[in-house]
């Protein structure tokens, strides 16, 4: 934490290296900047709470099949018998909440909302994480190459970045998704779940790398002229060493932050696309589809919109808070 623009404070950080034995007896193994950041993160309460929440969500998503067994209901099962005959509303209070159906039942289909949400979480996180990994990998590669090599390579990559940024994401997604589906499957064919999920991941990755690429390119350009990079160059280091040994370790921090902020963005995007009917079919459990369907019942069955809505809100909030905390921990000087 830089506290005041005053000499001497910074010395506190440096001091421990004093030749005469350092006062703190932590042996001769130094603490890396990463370890220091981790220690800062541990001290941050927001980070701890949001991390705990994230771990909870991820664990739930991972053990969804197990939960399903324990809970005794599968994601595809329906309980039409527990709906009223006339308009398909769940019987009982608050959308049919009961000991068997913790969050009640979906009106119309009679599926169990809790287990649909557990599986929806699985879908959401799978899509968001995969898309974030892909887009980050793409963005980092292109950004590093553009930033380090410069010249025409940089010009071309920057141009592509601008091009992608200029394309309206929603409209292209709206146009692209049905076309893709039709390209591989007939109009009447059942589209497998995996295809829908994979398609979304690819669409997100293709549109999502630009910000990471820009960020990384800027960082690399700033680092490229640093003297430690020149020192490696003066020793005859090749491209691989320069990129992976010298540069990348110094831009992990912003990449990590970008990644952790990309995940919630993809979660909401997936929900938004599902909401406007692009991507996943009704078979695949998904927050977006659930919220879309629940709007018809906003008046008659508010519990249906309440549970998925609150969960996705909590999920995205936790990710964003954690991303911010991570940024503060990794780069204490830029915080606030």
């Amino acid at each position: 934490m830089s506290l005041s623009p005053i000499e001497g404070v910074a010395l506190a950080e440096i001091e421990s290296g004093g030749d005469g034995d350092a006062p703190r007896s932590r042996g001769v193994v130094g603490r890396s900047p990463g370890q220091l950041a981790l220690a800062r993160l541990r001290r941050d309460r927001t980070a701890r709470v949001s991390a705990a929440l994230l771990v909870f969500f991820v664990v739930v998503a991972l053990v969804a099949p197990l939960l399903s067994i324990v809970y005794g209901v599968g994601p595809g099962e329906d309980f039409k018998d527990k709906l009223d005959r006339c308009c398909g509303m769940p019987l009982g209070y608050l959308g049919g909440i009961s000991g068997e159906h913790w969050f009640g039942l979906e009106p119309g289909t009679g599926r169990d909302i809790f287990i649909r949400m557990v599986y929806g979480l699985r879908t959401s996180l799978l899509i968001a994480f995969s898309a974030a990994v892909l887009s980050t990998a793409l963005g980092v590669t292109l950004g590093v190459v553009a930033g380090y090599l410069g010249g025409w390579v940089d010009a071309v990559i920057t141009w592509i970045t601008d091009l992608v940024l200029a394309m309206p994401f929603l409209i292209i997604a709206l146009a692209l998704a049905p076309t893709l589906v039709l390209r591989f499957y007939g109009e009447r064919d059942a589209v497998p779940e995996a295809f829908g999920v994979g398609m979304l991941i690819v669409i997100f990755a293709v549109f999502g790398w630009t910000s990471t690429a820009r960020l990384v390119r800027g960082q690399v350009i700033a680092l490229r002229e640093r003297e430690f990079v020149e020192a490696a160059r003066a020793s005859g280091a090749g491209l691989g060493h320069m990129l992976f040994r010298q540069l990348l370790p110094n831009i992990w921090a912003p990449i990590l932050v970008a990644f952790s902020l990309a995940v919630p963005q993809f979660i909401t995007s997936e929900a938004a696309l599902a909401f406007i009917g692009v991507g996943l079919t009704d078979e695949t459990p998904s927050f977006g589809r659930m919220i879309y369907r629940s709007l018809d019942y906003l008046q008659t069955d508010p519990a249906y919109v309440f549970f998925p809505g609150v969960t996705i809100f909590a999920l995205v909030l936790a990710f964003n808070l954690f991303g911010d905390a991570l940024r503060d921990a990794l780069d204490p000087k830029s915080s606030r």
Partner: protein
Amino acid sequence: MDSPEPVPSAQSDDRPGVSEQRADEAPHLRVEDLRVRFDTTDGVVRAVDGVSFSVARGRTLGIVGESGSGKSVTSLAILGLHDAKRTTITGQITLGGRQLVGLPDEEVRRLRGRDMAMIFQDPLSALHPYYTVGRQIAEAYRVHHPGASRREARTRAVDMLGRVGIPQPARRFDQYPHEFSGGMRQRAMIAMALVNDPDLLIADEPTTALDVTVQAQILDLLTDLQAEFHSAIILITHDLGVVSQVADDVLVMYGGRAVERGTVEQVLRRPQHPYTWGLLSSVPSLHGDAEADLLPIPGTPPSLINLPPGCAFHPRCRYAGRNGDRSRTEVPELGPAGEAGHLVACHLPAADRSRLYQEDVAHVGVAR
């Protein structure tokens, strides 16, 4: 050093703006037992730990020290530019008879720029890049002269630019900082600092960022301007050469404490503290034997969070063992070093000091 010295208390009945008449007699700025502490996550930083000095009008005090010696913090505390939330300041700072410690921020702000001004090391970051140089100087004038019209302020600013040796000041008035060269920028900074005729000018490493030939110009300029404006100047620097050129008095700081104080003649010609000796013998010089090794001070400057007990300099001092455990356990007081006005904070007996200096230091490097 733990017990504050009895201080001639400057009572608060000194009304603002009065007691000008005795300025030339009494020191214009008097700092008594100043202590500055910051609270940080790593611990308490004792940036300044019981420092006293005074500067009269027309005199220049050089404060010498390395990074982390507390020399810059001292100046920020005088100007009230510290971060009030994390900083604790105790002691007395009396400017023209007026106690500054504990004064409300608003009043200190009003004094700043009018009665005391600062010149920074890096004029490029101290000047706002989006406003013309002249406008910034004129603004600085109008802040303290609310009655002045724009035209008056401009006339004053152009006049100041001329006085600090900027050619064609009327044309330069409308240029931006990036259109000035390094030396010209520092001149503009000085013009801005002097625009309200402050009685106290604090220059924090004013020439460190400049080339030697330009540094020489700026130091000459400061000397000339002092003769003209008769202000008190505090010059903060790590460069003993700069001090030797322009200072009348010298204060040597180490680890937030004053280790030696006296006239420039006393401190540079007959230094009494082993740290001062070290500084003098480690500076490369243009004279003497170029092949001879420099005599560096071993080790590194201490952390202000974790000062060595006793004399803060003892881990780096060649003579620390001569007093048994005293250097390690007892903080030396700043006391008389022999000549009038010459003070030193060292456990070595005075006779030993002059003998050791003659034997070990005087023949090395510049200290001859």
